[in-house]
């Protein structure tokens, strides 16, 4: 057989995608409608910010990080990043920030292409951040606060936390409570604890279902890939706290469980199973998915997709449990905690190795810079690979280097099997 004539494996399409696309479409049109008419207040929120409080106060919520990922996956980001660089936002900082601000400066949004009639991102009435993701989100929202003359509020989270203590929880819970009054004034709606509990109950339900969805990847062969996860996490990010998100994950979970029952693999003839740590390279999502599929390798679990699981949410104790959930996050934890977490995940998902994505502009999500790959290798006896790239800035991505590294890694797994 001549070269390059091998049958190409591709990842199996998830049928529920159509349902997800519909609820995501409804979500964006609802925001657009509110933005155009002013009939409902809009808050912008960081991806792991206090979205539940905002929903309980009647806000519709837009997530700039989600918009940043859309700019990345549509490969528009690299065109806009230089616009933000030129006004003083370094090419070395978060490329979600630079892509999003750059796109705003150019008056462009990928929403327009995906959803006919939407011309702009929804106009905010308030900007609410949580620095649990990074300091960049605060700088990002601050730019919009100045530009749009919109109030900005936020929570400043602890970082490098080894064990989450009552002191951590108390301080975050207090900051959350302090948001209520100013947010209530902006929304024009009085805070209602029962509504808060209802929203949180839905958010917890969404979180539990999302965890079950991701956990299906422990089946051999796995019915889902990391690349599916990055797409299907949409509702868990932007619609948690709503009934639509809960309903969607029930549909998705049913499909994946059916696949397991019937032995249906996301990657046919799954030969190797890998764990991914770090951000996806959004502009190369399908290229990477195809590359691994052709190597009959399923990258099936990740730190990233699991970051929207909030098992600590307790509807009966909203503030303390939200404070705990948003402080138990992987991203704000110490390296010893992160190592145990990753090792536990690698065991649970029965993987053959781990890939670390060293995203140039996202140090907080790049866990390979302080000797972690070497320590994980020693702890698990499994090999690791670090690939250099970025979440959004394709100027920092070398496709040939990535490809050679990944192919060589799979060769190594084959030779050592």
């Amino acid at each position, binding site marked *: *057989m*001549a*070269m*390059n004539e091998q049958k190409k494996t591709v990842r199996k399409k998830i049928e529920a995608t159509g349902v997800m696309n519909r609820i995501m479409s409804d979500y964006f049109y609802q925001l657009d409608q509110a933005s155009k008419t002013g009939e409902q207040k809009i808050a912008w929120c960081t991806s792991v910010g206090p979205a539940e409080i905002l929903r309980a106060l009647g806000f519709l919520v837009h997530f700039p990080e989600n918009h940043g990922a859309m700019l990345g996956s549509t490969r528009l980001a690299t065109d806009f990043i230089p616009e933000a660089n030129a006004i003083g936002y370094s090419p070395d900082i978060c490329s979600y920030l630079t892509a999003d601000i750059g796109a705003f400066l150019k008056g462009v949004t990928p929403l327009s292409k995906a959803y006919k009639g939407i011309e702009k991102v929804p106009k905010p009435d308030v900007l609410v951040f949580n620095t649990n993701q990074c300091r960049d989100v605060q700088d990002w929202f601050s730019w919009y606060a100045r530009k749009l003359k919109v109030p900005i509020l936020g929570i400043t989270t602890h970082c490098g936390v080894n064990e989450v203590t009552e002191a951590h929880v108390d301080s975050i819970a207090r900051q959350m409570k302090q948001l209520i009054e100013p947010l209530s004034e902006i929304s024009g709606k009085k805070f209602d604890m029962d509504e808060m509990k209802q929203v949180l109950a839905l958010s917890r339900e969404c979180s539990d279902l999302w965890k079950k969805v991701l956990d299906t990847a422990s089946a051999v062969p796995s019915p889902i890939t990391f690349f599916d996860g990055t797409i299907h996490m949409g509702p868990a990010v932007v619609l948690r706290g709503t009934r639509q998100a809960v309903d969607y994950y029930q549909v998705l979970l049913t499909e994946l469980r059916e696949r397991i029952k019937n032995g249906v693999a996301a990657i046919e003839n799954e030969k190797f199973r890998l764990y991914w740590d770090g951000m996806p390279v959004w502009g190369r999502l399908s290229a990477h998915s195809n590359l691994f599929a052709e190597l009959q390798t399923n990258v099936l679990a990740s730190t990233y997709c699991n970051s929207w699981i909030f098992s600590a949410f307790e509807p009966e104790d909203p503030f303390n449990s939200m404070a705990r959930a948003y402080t138990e996050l992987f991203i704000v934890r110490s390296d010893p905690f992160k190592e145990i977490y990753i090792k536990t995940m690698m065991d649970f998902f029965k993987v053959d190795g781990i890939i670390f994505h060293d995203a140039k502009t996202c140090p907080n999500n790049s866990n390979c810079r302080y000797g972690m790959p070497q320590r994980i*290798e020693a702890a698990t006896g499994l*090999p*690791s690979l*670090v690939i*250099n790239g970025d979440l959004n800035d394709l100027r920092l991505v*070398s496709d*040939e*280097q990535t490809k*050679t*590294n990944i*192919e*060589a890694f799979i*060769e*190594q797994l084959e*030779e*050592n099997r």
Partner: protein
Amino acid sequence: MTSSIPVFVGVDVGASRAKAVVLDRDRHLLGFAVEKSGTDFTLVADHCLTASLEMAGVSKNSIVKTISTGYGRKNVSFAQENKTEIGCHSKGCFLYFPRPITIIDIGGQDNKIIKLDEKGRRTGFKMNRKCAAGTGAFLEEMSLRLNIPIEEMDALARQSEDMVKLGSFCTVFSATEVLENIRQGKKVTDIIKGLFFSVIKRVLEMDALTEQVVMTGGVVAHNSFLVTMTEEIIGRRILVPEYPQLTGAIGAALYAMEEGG
């Protein structure tokens, strides 16, 4: 006069040079060829094949199997399969040094550090990031800037008495440092040794050297002083195969032998 013994061919189309080798069943190197990779990888691979077969004194019909490697591995039309250069360098080195080794390969476009265990199995590898610092491309750029043919750099570096230290990661910034040293009247020999030192430092930053070190690659083949300097820096003897530039192609031919019967 051509022979009809069965042979195995490995082709390594690198970013800078294309290499082809012909091995017999006893792993003897019968023929090889090296050419600039240029812009047509398919054509240069064909040329290298023809030249190496001629040197080996065998015809195309004697080829049992061909495997390609390197950046242009998927452009070699006559290869039945391809492998990464990481795998091929490993195999090529282990043929000559069958023991646990740490391979440093310095190529035109990238560097690799590959670790093999006592059975020749890879335990890990690192490639340089996409930056040119520490690669052959860095020396090529500097040779242009200094207007000194690249093949003369090794001999000049050996004459240095007071090496210039260059601090930058970046090729462009290093060039600025070189210009500054020229302005200050520093000797070219000392600057070139400084460039060699910079290449070695970039490579040594990539990984710890845990086993017997072997150095390969085109840059090593043409600049043996790099090996001497590296030995001085790490304080250990380094092994170099007879044809350091051909290691990847030899590894590819060995894969062809394993898989071709």
